């Protein structure tokens, strides 16, 4: 079954919702660019609005989780594939930062760049193994590969390299600079914010452009009917692999940012729970829209700060996941989108987004 084609029944309704225009007009590109620029500018003002370090650190956590959720949303939206293994690229990249700075004395800049590159290469390897699968097969394969990396990381014989269950410090000289920021500044959520926010907006724009390009149209064809695409003379393996690697790279950027900011990596980053949490964030926010996973990530971080003390976080996130899947397919942003289409102004614009 893992080699089966994507049957329509395998496609989550959560990702069926969007009718992405096949091609985007010049006006569409302009509107997109304007929205991106405005969002980018508005986001940069956040550290000036609040100086509370706790809120800032939550906002930063949300942006980092959003990168992971965004990468999951991209695969779901354009290929109908749900991954539980992107922690391998997120956590793998974070571990690379920790290992190269600690063991090899690399500077933060070089470590982060190589970490993202290495995790992206890992995505090529994993992708080659899994992208032929679809639906449940894909979900289980990505889960298994992600957990394999986790098991390798935590075993005792890996202790000299990964620190096993203890995790690893990201240690580099205090005056080494990352994009002009010293080590202390990178660890300061307010000062690190512009870097993280830029990465998020850039990633979102990149994924949006890819989705609207000719390549995006090919992906959509594969999502809707993989077999027909093959019969029409399109290779489907390479486009799927490319999409998987793009998505993995976005997750890797999130992992590198996390490692630099927190200066500590632990096996949790690679664990089943992180995979599940990021997926829940993406689904609750809405897999059908570009911003859905970002909204979900922000909500998740908020919920985490509210409920973590009682230890009941997963009780609520589990309930949220069940309720959204049962009653609000398309998540929060998908629900808002449907609401907007019902309004006179939304309907007139033909349900534009």
């Amino acid at each position, binding site marked *: 079954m*893992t*080699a089966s084609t994507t049957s329509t029944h395998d496609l989550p309704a959560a990702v069926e919702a969007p009718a992405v225009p096949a091609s985007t007009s010049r006006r569409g590109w302009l509107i997109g660019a304007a929205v991106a620029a405005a969002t980018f500018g508005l986001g940069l003002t956040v550290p000036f609005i609040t100086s509370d370090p706790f809120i800032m650190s939550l906002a930063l956590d949300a942006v980092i989780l959003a990168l992971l959720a965004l990468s999951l949303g991209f695969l779901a939206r354009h290929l109908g594939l749900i991954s539980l293994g992107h922690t391998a690229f997120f956590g793998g990249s974070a571990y690379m930062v920790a290992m190269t700075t600690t063991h090899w004395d690399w500077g933060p800049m070089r470590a982060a760049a190589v970490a993202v590159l290495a995790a992206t290469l890992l995505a090529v390897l994993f992708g080659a*193994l899994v992208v032929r699968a679809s639906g*449940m097969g894909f979900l289980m394969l990505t889960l298994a590969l992600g957990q394999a990396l986790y098991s390798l990381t935590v075993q005792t014989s890996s202790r000299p390299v990964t620190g096993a269950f203890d995790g690893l410090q990201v240690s580099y000289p205090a005056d080494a600079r990352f994009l002009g920021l010293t080590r202390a500044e990178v660890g300061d959520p307010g000062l690190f914010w512009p870097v993280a926010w830029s990465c998020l907006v850039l990633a979102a724009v990149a994924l949006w452009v890819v989705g609207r390009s000719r390549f995006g149209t090919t992906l959509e064809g594969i999502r809707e009917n993989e077999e027909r695409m093959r019969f029409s003379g399109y290779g489907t393996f390479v486009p799927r692999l490319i999409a998987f690697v793009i998505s993995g790279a976005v997750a890797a950027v999130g992992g590198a940012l996390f490692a630099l900011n927190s200066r500590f990596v632990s096996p949790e980053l690679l664990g089943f729970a992180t995979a599940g949490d990021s997926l829940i964030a993406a689904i609750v926010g809405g897999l059908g829209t570009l911003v859905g996973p970002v909204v979900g990530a922000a909500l998740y971080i908020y919920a985490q700060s509210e409920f973590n003390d009682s230890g009941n976080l*997963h009780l609520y996130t*589990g309930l949220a996941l069940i309720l959204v899947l*049962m009653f609000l397919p398309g998540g929060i942003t998908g629900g808002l989108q449907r609401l907007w289409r019902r309004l006179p102004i939304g309907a007139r614009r033909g349900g534009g987004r």
Partner: protein
Amino acid sequence: MSIAEVLNGVALGSLLMVLSSGLAMIYGLRGVTNFAHGALYMVGAYVAYSVGTRLSFWVALLVVPVVLAAVGVVLELVFFRRLEHRSHIEVGLVTFGLALVGERIVVLIWGERTLSADPPSALSGSISVLGTNYPTYRLFVIVAALAMASALVLYLSRSERGLHIRAASHDLETASIMGINVDRVSLFVVALGAALAGLAGTLAVPYVSLDPGMGAGILITVLIVVVIGGVGSIGGAMVAGMGLGIAQTVGTTISPSIAVVIPYLALVLVLLLRPTGLAGRRAA
């Protein structure tokens, strides 16, 4: 490699067999990977612990599968049946949410600390197997699980209900056209799958220690077993479960660092060489 090590592998393999056959049955019929299967096993173990410490292990062995079958009925009626026309992935993710909630409820009731129980007095001590002393209880786990597995195979291949289950797993639509009450078959299968998970949980109580992470931990292994065995194939899942249990336990005694990757390695190898699993049929 001693006899005791091999038997340990068989004991782990027996538990995996019982768990994965339930998961494979539900998958075969509903097309849904039940991510709550690990949670069912865990709930079974905790309920068995409470019943076992208050009454007796033997009562637990009877009661827990029934309780879990009831949970399975709820699972089928409230979730699987209502969501039958939704994509399988979405239903699978709903079970993932259920597992998270279930895990937390277990913590709220039984607490977070690790629990353990002794085997019933009739099964304590050890027996000499080919000159090696081996714990009686583990032999009991092996015998009980193997008996359960053979009973299940016989039931599926010989009884009329078994025929209906096999037909419905093969092609739900055709089976219902041929007059099989698919809803009833499905209810039965999900209840049976959950009961088997409960049985595995009960057997596990005196064998492994209980902690709230035990469900998620074994779930991944069971998922791998089911994929290796050929998704939806009960026989394949049983063989893969036993094989993996032995390989992992024996592997651990040789090199722990190699043993942890055995399941993943096996999975990747099987999928590269035989993408539909050991006993896989071509997916519809």
